[in-house]
């Protein structure tokens, strides 16, 4: 606990708040830079659909006053920040009376499920495989696979998704092609539904996993190679401890800490990849929401969903960063190691 100084904490949280504030401001500025007047174009569209609307000018003017679009930009901005802080992003254009927040609330659990599952599997599998690759007692033929791990790291998740979809859903028909669960199961905490969700989630998770596991494996291996020459490892070996015990108690435990930083750094790439993977598999998460928003030119949905994902990424990285000094007492964060 002593590692977490107030100064570090303040700086880290300050960075977080600034990130959130800056991305919210970006959304505001971009929305104002969008050509055309959304209220006007919306009402013209309704007019085109339904024929002549009497007094349409008055209706548009009333709407603008109602939503405060006649206010000076600074007033709008302050109101906007207040709304954003309460996750009030207005209404979707394409599904008009639906608030954007309701769409996000529906999509968020699916996306979170995918990310958390992927992160956990990639961290455990990646580090285990990395440790096996670096261990001097591992048979040679296993170590000869190492170069192929390198190949996996260069296949982006969106391309892996296309390939997996073709082979395992289209050709072999082992997994479903799209969606998150089949229509004939009742959503809820029952086994058929849970198994169904796992079946539908396997390919999306695998697509994101492939690139991420590669990096985790390589990172773990590099860490262990560096640690191998340390005095405390030599001592453990000289004491005649069980080699496997030495591996996981002396080497892996120390190597896991930098791996956690690696996890935090890879998070933004992971989220970006997931947006695309959800699009490919039509998985009803935040990525698909963005994709559909782009299709229907639904700016509030595109911007609010992207903003929420940025917020989520920043929050997760903050949590990992704050966790780090608690796990590793050597880090003091006020200028190097103690």
């Amino acid at each position, binding site marked *: 606990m002593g590692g977490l100084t107030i100064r570090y904490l303040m700086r880290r949280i300050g*960075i977080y708040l*600034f*990130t959130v504030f*800056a*991305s919210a401001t*970006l*959304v505001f500025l*971009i*929305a104002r*830079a*969008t050509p055309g007047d959304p209220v006007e174009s919306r009402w013209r569209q309704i007019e085109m659909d339904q024929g002549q609307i009497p007094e349409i000018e008055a209706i548009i003017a009333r709407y603008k006053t109602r939503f405060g679009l006649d206010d000076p930009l600074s007033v709008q901005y302050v109101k906007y920040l207040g709304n954003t802080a309460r996750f009030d992003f207005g209404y979707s254009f394409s599904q008009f009376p639906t608030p954007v927040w309701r769409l996000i609330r529906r999509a968020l659990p699916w996306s979170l499920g995918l990310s958390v599952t992927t992160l956990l599997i990639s961290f455990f599998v990646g580090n285990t495989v990395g440790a096996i690759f670096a261990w001097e007692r591992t048979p040679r033929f296993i170590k000869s696979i190492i170069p192929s791990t*390198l*190949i996996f*790291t*260069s*296949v*982006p998740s*969106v*391309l892996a998704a*296309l*390939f997996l*979809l*073709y082979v395992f859903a*289209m050709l072999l028909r082992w997994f479903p*092609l799209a969606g998150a669960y089949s229509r004939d199961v009742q959503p809820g905490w029952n086994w058929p539904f849970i198994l169904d969700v796992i079946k539908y989630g396997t390919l999306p998770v695998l697509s994101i996993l492939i690139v991420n596991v590669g990096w985790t494996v390589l990172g773990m291996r*590099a860490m262990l*190679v560096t640690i191998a020459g340390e005095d405390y490892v030599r001592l453990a070996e000289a004491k005649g401890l069980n080699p496997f015990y030495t591996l996981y108690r002396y080497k892996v435990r120390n190597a896991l800490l930098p791996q956690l930083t690696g996890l*935090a*750094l890879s*998070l*933004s*790439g992971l*989220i*970006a990849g997931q*947006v*695309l993977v959800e*699009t*490919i598999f039509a998985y009803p998460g935040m990525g698909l929401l*963005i*994709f559909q*928003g*782009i*299709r229907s030119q639904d*700016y509030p949905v*595109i*911007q609010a969903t*992207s*903003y929420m*994902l*940025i917020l989520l*990424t*920043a929050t997760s*990285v903050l949590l990992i960063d704050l966790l780090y000094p608690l796990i590793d007492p050597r880090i003091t964060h006020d200028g190097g190691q103690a």
Partner: protein
Amino acid sequence: MTAATSNRLSSTLPSPASGYQDVKLSFKHSPWYNGKLLAGASVLGLLVLGLLVGHSVWDQELAYVGSSPLNLPPVGLEYKGQVGTWAHPLGTENAGRDMLALIIIGAPRSLLIGFTAAIIGLVVGVLLGFSAGYLGGRVDDVVRLATDITMNIPGLLVLIIIQSALPRAGFFTMALLLSLFSWQGATRVFRAQVLSMKQSGYVLMARLSGSSPFDIMFKEIMPNLMPYLVSNLTFGTSYSILTMVGMEVLGLGAQRIPSLGVTLNNAISASAILRGMWWWWALPTAVLIMIFMCLLLIAVGMDEVANPRLRDA
């Protein structure tokens, strides 16, 4: 150490090790003789050469909608009663565009935009990293803050927000936007390297002999960081290409100009996978994966050149 540095060192300071620099190493023993680096660079070179030859040989009008028969499979294969011909060796898609022409036009576009973005990002990153590491103080604080803030934001999402409002961004605007998220790596690496080199003997020597900070940065420190430079450039390029492809797959960016991402987006929208038209999505995917692998091999090879400890690890 570069020739210029060693000359200056040996003329001002007779060091016992100065003779060592004159030993000419054969190429086979040089650290640049690195399998990964050479493999990546040569395959990428062949790919670019192939694309250039294709540009002059193959009819690029075939990339227009309706210029060719629809849904033709690659040569020698059969798909729904149609047999692929040599007129369209890689087949065509559902709007009558020739796949070979799409790749010949699309791949250089993706490569070029990624490379341009990476170059801009690298220049900015190197300048910031050098200033932060060498000048320190207030400059360092600001640069570190900016890096910390932008490092943890998924660039794709910020670009989605910007692109949704600027649908008709040109090539250079696009490259500039992409470069917003490719400078941080260079800044961090260079800041750290400069911090450690600042105390090294030859930099102190140069400072004592009255060189300006600019000269020290670019004539003394910079040549030693060449491998990092190349490695960062390749990482930046693949990151920018990937982000660009990601946006195009989502349906953003200039959708009329063929690029690998746009072709993928068309294939996904027309459910090419379900229709069994594998060539439509698999060929652009294969070219992209090839580009990414080559860039990664170059980057890893460069890291090994720069850091001998990695070589046999």
